[in-house]
């Protein structure tokens, strides 16, 4: 058996490694690095990143970038100091292959100095309505779409995890429709990865709302709720839980969005806070149901 190496794959693998090392070593206070990190996120999230960027470079129908023939594609890369010559194959596939051999710093350079080179927009005028401003909008949309490319959590599709189900299956059926709506929306959004932050915010809104379930005087209403929950358990523990979760809601960027509020970045912390709050709300809902809802 003879082994025939594929050199292009080694080049592409090195680009993957380069990008990972860049991410690990970059300076998050450096403006150039910050730009490249965002671009890299778009590339990471969207497996078709190079295909879609290739469409812009080629000026394919449906976008506002100038059409580039074989000659101009070669010129495009050579002008940027990248020694690639179009080999006559399908333009967009060829460009995609080239892009896969460029690391994120090179891609960034290519976008800034090549894709948005105003001279090309003037030089390559043709039947297509090239438009510099529209191209900028299309590119921004492309990056935003890449960043929102998150797929749905498989556990949601498979309806897994019995413990989670117990919490999630308990549909709020209080007389306060707004409260029911907030909890339901929080649960629905939690399974969409990019909506987790919103899910947490909704849950904390529901918590503030449930505190006034027994009247507009928040203090006396929440004291009543705590007393009911604490029957045969511990008023001190429940009271403490109410206080701590209120404090978390105020100190982190959950209920308020001032610049001094701490962001919750890690998914594991979002999950922790979501389930901690959902458990307490679940306890509140069970208590309200058990004690009737006549006081609303």
């Amino acid at each position, binding site marked *: *058996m*003879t*082994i*025939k*190496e*594929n*050199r292009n*794959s*080694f080049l*592409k*693998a*090195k680009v*993957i*490694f380069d*990008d*990972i*090392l860049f*991410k*690990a*070593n970059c300076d998050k206070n450096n403006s150039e690095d910050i730009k490249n990190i965002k671009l890299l996120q778009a590339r*990471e*999230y969207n*497996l078709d990143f190079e295909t879609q960027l290739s469409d812009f470079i080629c000026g394919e129908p449906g976008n506002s970038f100038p059409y580039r023939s074989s000659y101009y594609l070669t010129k495009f890369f050579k002008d940027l100091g990248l020694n690639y010559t179009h080999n006559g194959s399908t333009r967009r596939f060829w460009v995609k292959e080239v892009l896969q051999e460029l690391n994120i710093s090179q891609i960034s350079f290519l976008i800034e100095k090549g894709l948005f080179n105003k001279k090309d927009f003037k030089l390559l005028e043709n039947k297509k309505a090239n438009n510099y401003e529209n191209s900028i909008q299309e590119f921004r949309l492309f990056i935003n779409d890449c960043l929102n490319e998150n797929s749905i959590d498989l556990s949601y599709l498979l309806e897994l995890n019995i413990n989670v189900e117990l919490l999630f299956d308990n549909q709020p059926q209080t007389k306060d429709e707004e409260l029911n709506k907030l909890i339901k929306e929080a649960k629905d959004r939690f399974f969409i990865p990019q909506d987790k932050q919103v899910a947490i915010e909704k849950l904390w809104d529901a918590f503030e709302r449930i505190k006034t379930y027994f009247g507009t005087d928040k203090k006396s209403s929440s004291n009543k709720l705590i007393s009911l929950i604490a029957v045969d358990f511990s008023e001190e523990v429940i009271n403490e839980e109410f206080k701590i979760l209120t404090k978390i809601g105020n100190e982190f960027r959950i209920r308020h969005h001032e610049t001094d509020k701490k962001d919750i970045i890690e998914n594991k912390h979002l999950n922790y806070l979501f389930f901690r709050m959902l458990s307490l709300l679940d306890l509140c809902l069970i208590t309200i149901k058990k004690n009737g809802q006549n006081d609303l």
Partner: protein
Amino acid sequence: MIDNKNIDNFIDLITEFNGFEGNLNSENVNRFEELKNKILAVLPENQKIRFSQLEFYSEIPENESNYQDDLPF
């Protein structure tokens, strides 16, 4: 996720990987496959997909163009 704690290990894997470029043969291909698996294990999710889509070599049977059963013309 690759961070400051495990970056040295990752760099070691890359160095070993680079050593195979231009030197891949039937004798070391199994070691190369083992290395690929080690790399895959530490890559972030989507980079894992990209990396696993790459075909680093093709296997050509010996004497492929010289089969005994070939027609004599």
